[in-house]
């Protein structure tokens, strides 16, 4: 244990002395900084550039190393090291926030002097390694100084995750809040409220029939309707799936998975191709019945339609768990008490599903309000918050402040929904799964209800099928709506390959490879952080655990557009400058998708009996060994799910990414947005089709690699007593 602290401190000291503290112009890996003559490492910045504010960092390492040598009592040594590490961390972070070249500056009046005013560049590799070393020196010492439950692996994991969430979720969101309160370069509370509550955002004109509403009201109405609609449809699907002998259940299942691997604009595009002014259905009705071709699709109804197609599967996935969770024995009990099928459903099953239904509604609500792709393609004059934020950043009149205020409005809505969900679910427990094997059969649906379910869900399933066939069809025709002759042009333009010169000539290759490599890097990182968090939440007790859980789930409630805007606001300046790199894309994916890994991990880990861990611990293994040898091998499916999900999301994400891509690191989805904006639908759809196939292939490969290890698990079976 002493060796661990020692190693971290030594590493920190070395990087303080040798590694470039600040961001180097040509990047770290070029090693230009080695011989360009200017001082670079922390030590040299202090000695030659008089950057005295770096002294505490170096001192912290020296002092705590001395402590390791000269303090013999383990607990005292740990406590002193702990204190020094905390001070070192604090000083290092503070100097980074206060002394910057340009950009937003905290505590401006705190320090003065010429060198301070000149500022410093962003933190580089040296600063990063120093901070990490201090952090781990802190967490390992913490594990040895407190009484009991001292496991360096656990404290270090907690410290690492909290720091990462603080830096990559809270720090940027703070930036957006500060920016929203900023008027003419200074913070103003009084200036914020008129802008925040202006009728431009919250206008209610559409309700009284006098023009259009503000984007916040639009978002709210749309999200409420989408939440209600997807929940109703999802419930229909779930009931058909579990309570009827419907034949084509497998097909239903596939239909519900498809939208998850569909890039965000595809449904919108397919709807345009079907119902737009020159869409197939529009043409058909115009010819047959002489109906007028209108642009009804571009506006509220089009967006609503697309969101219903996109988010119904999510509601289904939530509700199927809930519907299956209603124990057959309570339904059988109800029936033996002479209730008929309708009464059983109405008075027993439905009330038990209530929390799940609320959950599905709120999930649909949040998804709809955060949705970016569909409103962008189909919104027309119907403005919602997420797209307005985008146009406030990239539009003709770029106004970061307006974007920040809109982002705060959006954040307010999603966080309220999120809180509501937690309050609702926190209080009530309807759990009917007991761990005892339940035999018995769920009650069938009564005929009227069954008819209603079929009548709503099946046409919907058929429509989804049509939409997806359109995607394939559309990618093979010359110009949709005008010239339906078969062509491979779109594919060749996007993914052409010149065999004579061995060159990727297609226009899409660059973004395709970038997307794949970034998704490949982000997926395992997301899985690791998500599962580690789940492990801490399920298996470890520590102070502030609830706040910890809340903050990790928070990044789920922060819509992608808000994250995107906040990242360009926060990471465009010192102390952390990441915009324009591929690192920021990876980071944004990791923290956007982490909550799903956490949820999946929690679900999987809750099924592993806690006594397995305890057995391992009492047999002399530490937490790290326990995780490696007992927990991970039993979590194969959860790891697989986390990997797949984060990979797929990294490929299909658009809302946050679109702010962060650069010419060098373009992503598939933002490339498609560009094509859609230019009206090149064919190539956009061809690209989407390729992405879908790519994701399917990746899922299959992952499934093959990790496999589903089948064990007859005995730890949860209750033998007859």
């Amino acid at each position, binding site marked *: 244990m002493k060796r661990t602290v020692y190693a971290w401190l030594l590493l920190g000291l070395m990087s303080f002395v040798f590694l470039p503290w600040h961001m180097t112009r040509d990047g770290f890996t070029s090693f230009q900084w080695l011989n360009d003559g200017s001082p670079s490492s922390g030590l040299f910045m202090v000695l030659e550039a008089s950057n005295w504010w770096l002294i505490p960092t170096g001192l912290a390492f020296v002092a705590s190393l001395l402590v390791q040598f000269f303090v013999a009592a383990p607990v005292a040594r740990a406590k002193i090291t702990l204190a020094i590490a905390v001070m070192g961390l604090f000083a290092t972070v503070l100097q980074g926030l206060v002394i910057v070249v340009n950009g937003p500056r905290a505590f401006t009046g705190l320090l003065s002097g010429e060198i301070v005013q000149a500022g410093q560049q962003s933190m580089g590799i040296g600063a990063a390694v120093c901070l990490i070393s201090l952090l781990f020196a802190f967490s390992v010492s913490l594990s040895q100084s407190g009484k009991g439950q001292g496991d360096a692996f656990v404290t270090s994991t907690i410290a690492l995750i909290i720091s990462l969430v603080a830096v990559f979720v809270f720090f940027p969101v703070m930036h957006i809040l500060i920016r929203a309160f900023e008027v003419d370069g200074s913070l103003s509370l009084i200036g914020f409220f008129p802008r925040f509550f202006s009728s431009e955002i919250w206008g209610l004109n559409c309700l009284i029939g006098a023009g259009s509403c503000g984007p916040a009201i639009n978002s709210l109405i749309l999200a409420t309707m989408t939440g209600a609609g997807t929940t109703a449809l999802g419930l229909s699907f779930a009931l058909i799936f579990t309570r009827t002998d419907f034949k084509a259940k497998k097909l239903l299942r596939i239909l519900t998975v498809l939208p998850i691997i569909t890039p965000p604009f595809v449904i919108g595009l397919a709807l345009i191709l079907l119902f737009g002014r020159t869409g197939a259905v529009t043409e058909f009705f115009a010819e047959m019945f002489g109906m007028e071709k209108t642009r009804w699709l571009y506006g509220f109804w089009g967006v609503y339609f697309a969101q219903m197609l996109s988010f119904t599967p999510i509601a289904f996935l939530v509700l199927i768990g809930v519907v299956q969770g209603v124990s057959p024995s309570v339904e059988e009990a109800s029936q033996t008490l002479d209730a008929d099928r309708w009464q059983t459903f109405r008075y027993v099953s439905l009330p038990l599903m209530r929390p799940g239904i609320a959950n599905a509604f709120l999930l649909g609500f949040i998804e709809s309000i955060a949705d970016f792709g569909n409103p962008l393609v189909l919104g027309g004059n119907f403005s919602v918050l997420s797209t307005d934020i985008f146009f406030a950043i990239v539009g003709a009149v770029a106004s970061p402040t307006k974007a920040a205020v809109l982002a705060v409005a959006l954040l307010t809505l999603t966080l309220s929904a999120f809180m509501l969900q937690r309050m609702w679910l926190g209080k009530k427990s309807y759990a009917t799964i007991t761990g005892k094997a339940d035999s018995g059969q769920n009650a069938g649906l009564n005929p009227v209800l069954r008819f209603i379910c079929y009548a709503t869900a099946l046409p919907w399933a058929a429509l989804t099928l049509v939409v997806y066939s359109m995607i394939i069809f559309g990618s093979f025709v010359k110009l949709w709506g005008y010239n339906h002759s078969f062509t491979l042009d779109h594919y060749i333009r996007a993914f052409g390959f010149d065999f004579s010169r061995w060159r990727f000539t297609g226009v899409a290759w660059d973004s395709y490879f970038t997307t794949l490599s970034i998704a490949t890097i982000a997926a395992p990182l997301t899985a690791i952080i998500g599962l580690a968090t789940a492990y801490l939440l399920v298996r470890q007790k520590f102070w502030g655990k609830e706040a910890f859980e809340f903050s990790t789930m928070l990044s789920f409630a922060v819509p992608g557009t808000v994250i995107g805007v906040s990242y360009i606001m926060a990471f465009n300046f010192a102390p952390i400058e990441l915009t324009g790199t591929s690192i920021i894309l990876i980071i944004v994916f990791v923290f956007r998708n982490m909550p799903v890994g956490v949820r999946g991990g929690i679900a999987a880990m809750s099924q592993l009996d806690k*006594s*397995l861990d305890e057995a391992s611990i009492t047999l*002399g293994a530490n937490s790290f060994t326990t995780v490696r040898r007992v927990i991970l*091998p*039993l979590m194969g499916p959860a790891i697989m799910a986390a990997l797949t999900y984060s990979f797929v999301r990294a490929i299909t994400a658009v809302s946050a990414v679109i702010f962060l891509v650069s010419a060098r690191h373009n992503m598939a989805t933002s490339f498609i947005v560009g094509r859609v904006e230019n009206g090149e639908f064919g190539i956009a759809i061809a690209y989407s089709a390729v992405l879908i196939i790519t994701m399917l292939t990746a899922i299959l490969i992952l499934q093959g690699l990790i496999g589903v290890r089948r*064990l007859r698990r005995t730890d949860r079976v209750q033998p007859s*007593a």
Partner: protein
Amino acid sequence: MNNSINSNHHGEVRFENVIKRYGNVTALKGLDIVIEPGKLVTLLGPSGCGKTTTLRLIAGLEMASEGNIFIGGENVTHLTATYRRVSMVFQSYALFPHMTVRQNVAYGLTVKSVPKNEAYQKADEGLELVGLAGFGDRLPSELSGGQQQRVAVARAIVLEPEVLLLDEPLSNLDAKLRRHVREEIRQLQQRLGLTAVYVTHDQEEAMAVSDRIIVMNNAEIAQEGSPADLYERPASSFIADFIGDANLVNCEVLSAENNKGEVMLAGTKYAVASDGMTKGDAKLVLRPHALELLSPDHAGLKGEVSYAAYLGREMQYTIDTEVGQLFAIAPVRANSFAKGDTVSLGINENLARIVKA
């Protein structure tokens, strides 16, 4: 059996005023216990009495809020489970389902960097010790409940722990197997001279395996002693009721000297054992077999049979009397009583005791 698993490492367990709190709830109120080396001591009590908490404190799975814990003379209060020389057999066995039986048993050795073949050899010895030689290559799911239980025991003892902890190890076995397995555990413990702490809520099981029993109630020790002490000399009505069946009847102590008390019950005087009791109200402890059912013309406590059950080797009766309902066990005889019969109850004074009211 020539075995390298030996008993050199049996340690004493000592609690000094150990308090455990969860938030505002006190799970243990200042516990002082000593568990002698080589003995099997059972923690017995109703659910929620703190017995499992005590066991987990010894294991290091919970940390004491106050007080000190010593194992083998060493203060381990702040050591986590990883670093204590203690192993535990879990109620659910907690066998790792993805490892074979041999890997399971060798696990504790391999995490301590014992070379694999040595660990496996030792694991096979452990399996032999519990009568499972040759089962090493199976998965836990391929074993019966009783076999899994023995694997869990083997896994715990190959580490040669200073203390072996058993947390309701029999509760997942069926009734017949339970008696067999508890005998095996007891024999193994005695053969290896292990210090063992055993938790159960089943008083019969506790009496069958223990050198000493610590009965706990409401987060503290209610009474401790050998099985015979607890059954024959209960210190309170709780113990009398909890250890074995007992009828507890309100009575009045007329006089008490030389550990004999004179008790008045429903107009009749009885002389029964009474250490340390004084005059006044008390409870009379009547074991079911201390009651004799006689025909109503005999002298004694009058009552009416309200329930009679034939159990093969004995009859069980519930009798309504003026001092309350009494439960009695009698040998099966030709002229057994039936529901509704009036009886006279004789009390065997040697088997009765008085405890504090």
